[in-house]
């Protein structure tokens, strides 16, 4: 079991010019430690993080898209695994932080905590699937995982992080989305 903040610190050291799409608790921590134009914060409806990612991956085949999803969010849009596997974008990496709770909604448990998301991803048709339970393996392998031909799925077992309240206003500002588009249009 890992700490999400530690995982994100490792990711921060690993990524370069990828677009990182995140939501809720993960997004809150990510923006605090790595506020950059190539971040995109999925909002509007819980669970759609990976769907936004699929759209970007299809529209921007030259860019690597990394989706930072949560297990509660994924359960709200479980069909996305089949859609992603069928669309098969080579530039998409779907990372799911699994803590067994709706952390952003008060920390209540999911209906079932020990869901085998990696198994689900395999069944859905993902060819490259990983599971991480300790930070040493994560640190050693995540760089290579992010470079694999997509779609790639990885389940990352973490402990529950601090409960809110969190403010999402800053990350959801329209100016952020405009800036991302400007950077992309400029070839970023």
């Amino acid at each position: 079991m890992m700490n999400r903040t530690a995982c994100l610190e490792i990711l921060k050291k690993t990524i370069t010019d990828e677009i990182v799409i995140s939501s809720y608790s993960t997004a809150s921590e990510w923006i605090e430690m790595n506020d950059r134009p190539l971040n995109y914060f999925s909002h509007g409806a819980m669970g759609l993080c990976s769907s936004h990612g699929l759209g970007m991956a299809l529209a921007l085949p030259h860019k690597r898209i990394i989706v930072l999803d949560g297990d509660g969010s994924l359960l709200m849009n479980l069909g996305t695994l089949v859609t992603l596997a069928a669309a098969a974008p080579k530039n998409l990496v779907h990372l799911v932080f699994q803590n067994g709770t709706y952390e952003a909604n008060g920390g209540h448990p999911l209906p079932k905590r020990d869901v085998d998301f990696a198994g689900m991803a395999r069944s859905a048709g993902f060819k490259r699937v990983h599971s991480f339970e300790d930070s040493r393996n994560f640190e050693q392998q995540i760089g290579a995982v992010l470079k694999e031909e997509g779609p790639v799925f990885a389940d990352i077992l973490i402990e529950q992080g601090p409960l809110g309240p969190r403010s999402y206003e800053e990350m959801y500002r329209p100016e952020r989305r405009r800036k991302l588009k400007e950077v992309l249009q400029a070839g970023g």
Partner: protein
Amino acid sequence: MNAPAKPADTEGSLSGAAILRAVKAAGIEYVLSVPDLHTAKGLLAPISTDKDFKLVRVCKEDETLGIAAGLLYGDKRSLILIQYTGFLYAMNAIRGVACEQKLPMVMMIGLLSKEVGVAPQDSKRFGLRIVEPILDVMGIERHYIDLDADIAAITPAIERAYAQSRPVAFLIGRRPS
């Protein structure tokens, strides 16, 4: 636009091929869809074999809103092709992604089982009667496409939606040929 749909003629037809020409003329490249019996033969089947379209088959209708939003970052235009029941299912995503973020999202919504010659608001089916009022309360421009003559509205309405960055909905009244 958002006036109540006219009572439809019992005579007349709706050409699926003409609808798709209008969609193409507006620069739509991607089609995001859950199959709808109402449009399965007249629209989705030809789309699935048309090299000008890239079809993304999804499992649930709300996925289409996220995918359409992502596509915008590569300036790709998309058509969301769903049944009215899927529209109702995806309501929160339409609210949060299309309406609140003021994004150009083009929805083509099949009114499955609507009686020919009966306007949606007069249908015997509760689910069909509420579609137009819901679109109105959400402030989404809507067009009722029931006859070939209605198809002329499609291309300019899509162009306006993109120019003004807002959603638009086309309600497919009769089953396209």
